[in-house]
C-alpha cells in the first residue's frame, strides 16, 4: 500500500427522483489497498459505485483519478482508464464460454472494418487460460460455458478478466453473496492476490466478517452518508458492527 491516492471523491451528491441517495460524500482511496465499503441495504453503496464506474454521473461534486479530475460518460470510459466494476449478478453471460466472456467488448480481432472484425479465437483461448492461471484458477477448458462453473469460480473468472486488462481499480459489488463458506474463502484469496499485483480493490458488502480479514481500510455508509472511514489498525470488529447496526 502506498500513500498516494488513486481515487479521490469530493462532495458527491446524487438524487434519484427526489430521493437524496448520496449526501456530500468525500472519500480517498489509497493505491494498492483493499477498501471495505460496508453498509446496510439502501445506504448508498450502489449509488457510489455506479458513479465511480461511470454508469451514472453525480449531480454535483468531483472525482479525481490519479490526481486528475475525471467525468465519465460511460462505463467504457472508466474501463479504459482502468476502473473495472464487477456487479453482483451481472458480470458474466451464463450461456457463453469462459474465453468469450473474458473478451466481451474487447475481443482480439483481425481483418477488421471499423470496429468489427474476425475474432482470433485461438489466441483468445490461450490468453484466457493464462489469465485464469494467473489468479490460481485451474479450469479445464476455455470453451466451458460459465453456467457450468461454481459461484466462486465465476468470481475468479471475472477477477481474471480484470487482471488481464490491467485494471488499476477493481470495484467488487457483493462478490461473496450467495456463496458457500468454501467458495467465499476462494474469492477472498483472489482479492488478497490482487493487492500483491498492484491492484486497488473496493470491496462492497453488508457482511463485515467477509471483508474485515482482508481490508486495509473500512468505510461505513448509512442513509447516503459516510459515517466512518477508518484504517483497520484504528478500529476493531465490535466498533464496526456497532456502527453498521446503529448507524
Amino acid at each position, binding site marked *: 500500500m502506498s500513500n498516494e491516492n488513486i481515487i479521490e471523491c469530493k462532495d458527491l451528491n446524487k438524487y434519484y427522483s427526489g430521493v437524496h441517495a448520496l449526501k456530500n460524500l468525500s472519500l480517498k482511496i489509497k493505491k494498492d489497498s483493499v477498501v471495505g465499503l460496508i453498509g446496510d441495504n439502501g445506504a448508498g453503496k450502489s449509488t457510489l459505485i455506479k458513479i465511480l*464506474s461511470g*454508469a451514472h454521473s453525480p449531480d454535483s461534486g468531483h472525482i479525481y483519478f490519479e490526481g486528475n479530475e475525471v467525468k465519465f460518460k*460511460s*462505463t*467504457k470510459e472508466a*474501463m479504459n482508464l482502468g476502473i473495472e*466494476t464487477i*456487479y453482483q*449478478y*451481472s*458480470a*458474466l*453471460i*451464463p*450461456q*457463453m464460454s469462459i474465453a*468469450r*466472456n473474458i*473478451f*466481451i*467488448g*474487447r*475481443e482480439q*480481432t483481425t481483418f477488421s472494418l471499423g*470496429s*468489427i*472484425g*474476425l*475474432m482470433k*479465437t485461438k489466441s483468445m483461448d490461450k490468453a484466457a487460460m493464462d489469465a485464469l492461471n494467473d489468479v490460481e484458477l485451474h479450469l479445464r477448458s476455455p470453451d466451458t460455458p460459465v*453456467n*457450468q462453473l*461454481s459461484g466462486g469460480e465465476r468470481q475468479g473468472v471475472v477477477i481474471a478478466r480484470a487482471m488481464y486488462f490491467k485494471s488499476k481499480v477493481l470495484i467488487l459489488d457483493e462478490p461473496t453473496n450467495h456463496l458457500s463458506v468454501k467458495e467465499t474463502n476462494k474469492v477472498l484469496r483472489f482479492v488478497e492476490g490482487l493487492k500483491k499485483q498492484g491492484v486497488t480493490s473496493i470491496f462492497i458488502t453488508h457482511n463485515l466478517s467477509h471483508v474485515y480479514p482482508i481490508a486495509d481500510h473500512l468505510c461505513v455508509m448509512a442513509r447516503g452518508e459516510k459515517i466512518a472511514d477508518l484504517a483497520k489498525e484504528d478500529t476493531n470488529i465490535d466498533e464496526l458492527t456497532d456502527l453498521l447496526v446503529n448507524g
Partner: protein
Amino acid sequence: MTGFFIANENFLSARNIRIVMGITPEYIIVAIGIAILMISGEFDLSVGSVFALVPMTMVQLVHQGMPPWVAIALGLSIGIAVGFVNGFITLRFGIPSFIATLGMLYIARSLTTVATGGFPPPFPHELPNELFVFQFEVFRASLFWMLGVAFIAGIMLHRSNLGNWIYSTGGDTAAASSMGIKTNNVKMFCFILCGFLAGFAGMIQTFRIEAPLPSQGYLLELESIAAAVIGGVSLFGGVGTIFGAAIGAILIRFLESGIIMARIDAEWFRAGLGSLIIISVVFNTWVVRRGENMVHKNQAEENENNSQNNETVTESKDE
C-alpha cells in the same frame, strides 16, 4: 423421414427433392434473420408481412416505370426501414418486441394490400428473376443466394466480435452493457438485418412464382420462429446457431412435402409441425439438462476427491 419414404418412394425422388430445394432457400433466409434477432433477445412477428410488402413495392415501382435495379434497391430498403421502425419502437419506448412487431405485422400486411390497389399486379418481366431463381438440374439459383447469406451470417455470428456482442446482449443485457457493449445498437442492427432478410427472401419467392401476391408469407412469422426453435435457438436469447435455424427450416419443408407425398390430408401438416416443435424443444431441454447433470456429478466427485486428498495430507502431517 424414413416413414415418408416408405409411404411414397417418390419422396426422395429427384423431382420431389427438386421441388423442395426450390422453395426451401426462401424460408431458410427468413429463419436466419429471425434466429439472429432471437439470439439478441428480441422477436419479429412482422417478417411474414415484410415478405409480401417488399416484393409488392418492388413490382409496383417497376410498373411506375422505375429501372428494375432501382426498384429492387428501394424494395429492400423498405425491409430495412420496417426493421428500423420495429427496433426504434421496441427500444425507444421500452415495450416488448413481441407487441411492437405484432402491430407491424398488421400494418405491413395492410400496406401490401393497399399497394395492390384491389387486385394483384402482373409480374413485370424486365425484372432479373433468372439471376435469383434460375432452375438448374435439382436446385435453383436461390440456393446459392441462401448459401451466401448463411455463410456471411455464420461468420458474423460465430467468428466476428459483433457475434460475440449479439450473444452477450441476448444472454444478459445488463451484464453486456456493464462491459461496455452498446446493447441497443446491437439489437437495432439485428432488427434491421431481420427485416432486410425477410424482404430479400420475399423477393426471391416473387421471382420464383412470377406473381406478387398480397397473401404471400401468411403465417410465415410463426413458422420462422418454429424453425429457429426446432434448430435449438432459445426463446430467451443468447443461445442458437445459424446452422440449427437452417436445419429447422429444412425439416419443416420436408415434413410438409412428406405429408403431401404420403397422401395424408394436407391439413395434417400443421399438426405435424406442432408436434415437431414440441418434441424438438423437449428433446433440446432434456439434452441440456443431462449435460448439466453430468457436470454437476463430475464437480461433486472432484470435490470429494479433493477433500479425500486433504484428509491424506493432514494425516501425513500428523505422523
